[in-house]
């Protein structure tokens, strides 16, 4: 064995010895619970929401997010100057309730998620029982904050992406919101009541929409919603 080969052999042996030990992969449910509970500290973030409509150019908006334990405030500013922002304040639901709903619809798996907004993440894949990938979530390894979420159609194409593009965690000390949380039926982020006709209520975010109607005494949802969101919009208001 030549000296060169010996040196290469030592280098190959030494490299794993100096490498950082891999972080143990958390359980899917444990990680999902942490994500639903949110960080224990306040945070401030900028979030980009992208909607991919078939055959059309993608659309996006930016939201300023201010989080405190148990509560989140999102403010969306219209590109037009002087337009009032759309502000939403929400209480976080009990993590156990959210986990039960997700488990009722999806099989959940964890993998390494890469870096989002300079934070290392775990990736959660939520698949329908039929095997269709419906959602992918990127969760901050340290804080449990949901950093990115993608929603897919049945054919596998990307329908929606919400991504944290800038994060300050822990955030500003002053996170007292002036606005009270919205009291009423739950709606996915960015959606608003858009009108009612013939017993059918329509909700929209300007690009996507869904409807709730009563069919044979039972409420039915139709529209662009993932299964867990469709189940949640039918839950009684708190």
């Amino acid at each position: 064995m030549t000296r060169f080969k010996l040196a290469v052999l030592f280098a190959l042996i030494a490299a794993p010895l100096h490498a950082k030990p891999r972080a143990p992969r958390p359980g899917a449910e444990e990680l999902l619970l942490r994500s639903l509970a949110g960080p224990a500290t306040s945070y401030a973030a900028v979030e980009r929401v992208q909607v991919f409509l078939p055959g059309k150019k993608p659309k996006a908006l930016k939201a300023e997010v201010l989080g405190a334990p148990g509560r989140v405030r999102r403010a969306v500013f219209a590109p037009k100057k002087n337009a009032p922002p759309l502000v939403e304040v929400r209480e976080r639901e009990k993590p156990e309730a959210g986990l039960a709903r997700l488990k009722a619809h999806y099989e959940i798996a964890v993998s390494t998620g890469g870096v989002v907004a300079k934070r290392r993440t775990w990736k959660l894949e939520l698949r329908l029982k039929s095997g269709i990938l419906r959602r992918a979530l990127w969760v901050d390894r340290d804080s449990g904050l949901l950093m990115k979420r993608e929603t897919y159609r049945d054919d596998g194409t990307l329908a929606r992406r919400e991504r944290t593009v800038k994060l300050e965690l822990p955030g500003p000390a002053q996170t007292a919101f002036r606005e009270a949380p919205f009291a009423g039926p739950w709606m996915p982020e960015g959606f608003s009541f858009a009108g009612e006709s013939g017993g059918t209520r329509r909700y929209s975010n300007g690009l996507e929409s869904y409807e709730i109607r009563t069919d044979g005494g039972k409420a039915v949802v139709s529209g662009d919603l993932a299964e867990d969101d469709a189940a949640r919009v039918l839950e009684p208001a708190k």
Partner: protein
Amino acid sequence: MKEKDDARLAKAAMKSLRVPAPESLTADLKRLARNRKPARSVWAGLRDALEGGAWAYGAGAAFAAAAVALIIMRSMPEREPVKEFAERPALRLEAAPQQALRDLWSDDEGEDNDEI
């Protein structure tokens, strides 16, 4: 002649209605007093009531329970009258202006990266 007959008839009627006076009024009163039952004393009545049958105990217990319940109810603070159940009114939602919602979105390249 007729007047004479009338007077005689009236006299006969009066005679038939007359009650014979008792031979001795004192003896008569004594006899009445003997026949009358002696009046029972109040204490004897109470004693009889206490020594009554099982029904008396039941009635007594019911009376005592009613009295205790009345005392408790009167000593409790008054509650607010219960409002009649009314179905929760449907939440009045105002439809958001759709144009304002659409104006929040802008064209995008669909990139997946951080803010620089």
